[in-house]
């Protein structure tokens, strides 16, 4: 045995039985090799017990990895320094969200026994947000929507007990899972013809979805996680003339939608459904209209529930087909006064989120690859950090409070 080989031979001793099968000339008994015992103390690779940094500062970025969608993943960053601090692999076109207590990450995805062929298994999974350990798997009907990461594809009830998963086969339905018990309580088919699961503000166990005739359907769940009652509103908007984006902002028990044309639709909610619709108003000034500004993006609207400041991604020169264009500006509106109170350059972002976990509230944005963090304690957002290459094709991000900011 040559000298160099001897230096690393002690490591083979770690292999126990399997090493004996391997390199006949490599089976050195570590016990008899003084060098081996000397090296042993350093010879341990630890696994970090938890994700580094203060949990309140984490920024979660869902990367679809569109060109390798079977390797979609949740990337985790420390918002105070932009460092990548961990990730969860989440198979084909997965979703993720935070538990209400911020202590868990919930994911949902589809597995194939012979990727991309074979038997499909859909799951909801529970992970410890600090240790990133897998805690529980809940097998759900193999019907989950394989959709881009709109916030409403995978969300939860306000009480934090039930996860809500959008299905499409293409028949649409919603899977409800009890996250304490780890079981599916019901697949709600009453939502056929409707799309996107929005947590109904102010109600412990209720969600609202947008139907193909422009109405909102609200489903109230019982404590058993099964449909207790449903209520369908009259049409809120004209699907043909003024379609709304499916992403909703929430404030004061209201659901706030913006249309392709920049009109704000407001539904005043209780647990049973829509109490009333407020008058429609436009976020566009005359100058905006002249320059053809319009909202655009994926998760493109959010409000700070504390002050009713509304954030909307906007682009000029809007035409048919520009509704997913990157943002040229992020506009801030005061929902109380219905006036624009701030704006920052859009940085070509496609999605945003409000984060309430940090000491001062934050606006998070992403252009597919690069994430930006703004302090929004005043009307004018203040850019505090950019995280470059936060994902390859990422259209959703959120803070520890997740995307459900209602109570």
């Amino acid at each position, binding site marked *: 045995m040559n000298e160099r080989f001897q230096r690393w031979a002690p490591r083979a001793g770690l292999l126990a039985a399997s090493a004996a099968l391997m390199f006949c000339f490599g089976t050195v008994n570590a016990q008899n090799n003084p060098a081996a015992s000397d090296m042993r103390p350093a010879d341990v690779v630890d696994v970090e017990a938890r994700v580094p940094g203060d949990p309140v500062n984490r920024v979660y970025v869902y990367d*679809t990895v*569109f*060109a*390798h*969608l*079977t390797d979609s993943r949740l990337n985790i960053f420390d918002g105070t320094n932009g460092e990548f601090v961990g990730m969860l692999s989440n198979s*084909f*076109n997965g979703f993720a969200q935070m538990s209400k207590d911020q202590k868990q990450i919930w994911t949902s995805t*589809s597995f*194939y026994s012979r*990727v*991309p*062929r*074979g038997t*499909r298994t859909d799951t909801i999974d529970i992970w410890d947000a600090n240790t990133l350990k897998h805690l529980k798997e809940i097998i759900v009907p193999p019907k989950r*929507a*394989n*959709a*881009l990461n*709109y916030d409403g594809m995978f969300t939860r009830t306000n009480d934090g007990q039930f996860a809500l998963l959008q299905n*499409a*086969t*293409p028949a*649409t339905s919603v899977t409800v899972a009890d996250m304490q018990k780890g079981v599916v309580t019901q697949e709600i088919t009453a939502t056929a013809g409707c*799309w*996107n699961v929005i947590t109904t503000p102010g109600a412990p166990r209720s969600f609202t979805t*947008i*139907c*193909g005739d*422009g109405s909102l359907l609200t489903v109230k769940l019982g404590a058993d996680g099964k449909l207790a009652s449903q209520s369908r509103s009259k049409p809120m908007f004209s*699907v043909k*003339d*003024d*379609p*709304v*984006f*499916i992403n909703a902002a929430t404030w004061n028990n209201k659901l706030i939608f913006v249309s*392709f*044309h920049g009109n704000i639709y407001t539904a005043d909610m209780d647990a049973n459904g829509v109490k009333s619709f407020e008058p429609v108003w436009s976020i566009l000034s005359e100058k905006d*209209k002249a320059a*053809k500004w319009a909202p655009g993006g*994926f998760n493109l609207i959010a409000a700070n529930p504390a002050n009713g400041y509304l954030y909307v991604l906007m682009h*000029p*020169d*809007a*035409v*048919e*087909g*520009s*509704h*997913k*264009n*990157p943002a*040229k500006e992020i506009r801030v509106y005061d929902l109380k006064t219905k006036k624009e109170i701030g704006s920052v350059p859009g940085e*070509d972002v*496609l999605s945003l989120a409000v984060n309430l976990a940090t000491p001062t509230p934050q606006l998070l944005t992403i252009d*597919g690859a690069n994430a930006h963090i703004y302090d929004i304690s005043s009307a004018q957002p203040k850019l505090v950090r950019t995280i470059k290459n936060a994902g*390859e*094709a990422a*259209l959703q991000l959120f803070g520890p409070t997740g995307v459900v900011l209602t109570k």
Partner: protein
Amino acid sequence: MNWVDRLGEGLARGVAHNVSRRGLLASVSKILVGSAFIMPVLPISRVAHAQEGGGAAAEPAAGDDPTNCDYWRHCALDGFQCSCCGGTLNSCPAGSEASPISWVGTCHNPHENKNYVVAYHDCCGKTACGRCYCGNQVDERPGYEFFRHNDVDWCMANRSAVYHCTVSLIVGPAT
């Protein structure tokens, strides 16, 4: 500014957009060529600079190549063009499976000055082809108009929902 219904005008501008986007991508390619890097694809990369397009005149060349994203029948194609993946304008690559369902757009054929219904079928059962990504959104609508929506995987009703590429099938005139 109710431009949703002004389809003709929208499409005309859309073409002008696309031409300039094409120029942009060509220059990006030049940088990446010859390196050991390949250009990854973002679902929205083609629109990422659309607003810089402005009012440049349409170059006929861009719209005449059916494998170009700017070709009229791809007006709502959001995915990898199957004709770059071993398929054709009307067919899926060998070994994949065509989706029986699809999203549907209405595209303007500038040569005939006529609108056509185009069905965007996904090809399924292989992982992403990764070539010739187009991110067009003309006449696309949110998921509550499900069959006009392209942010879902139209392989959803196939044996395998794993997405490979997309075919733009001309169904017929938009009568």
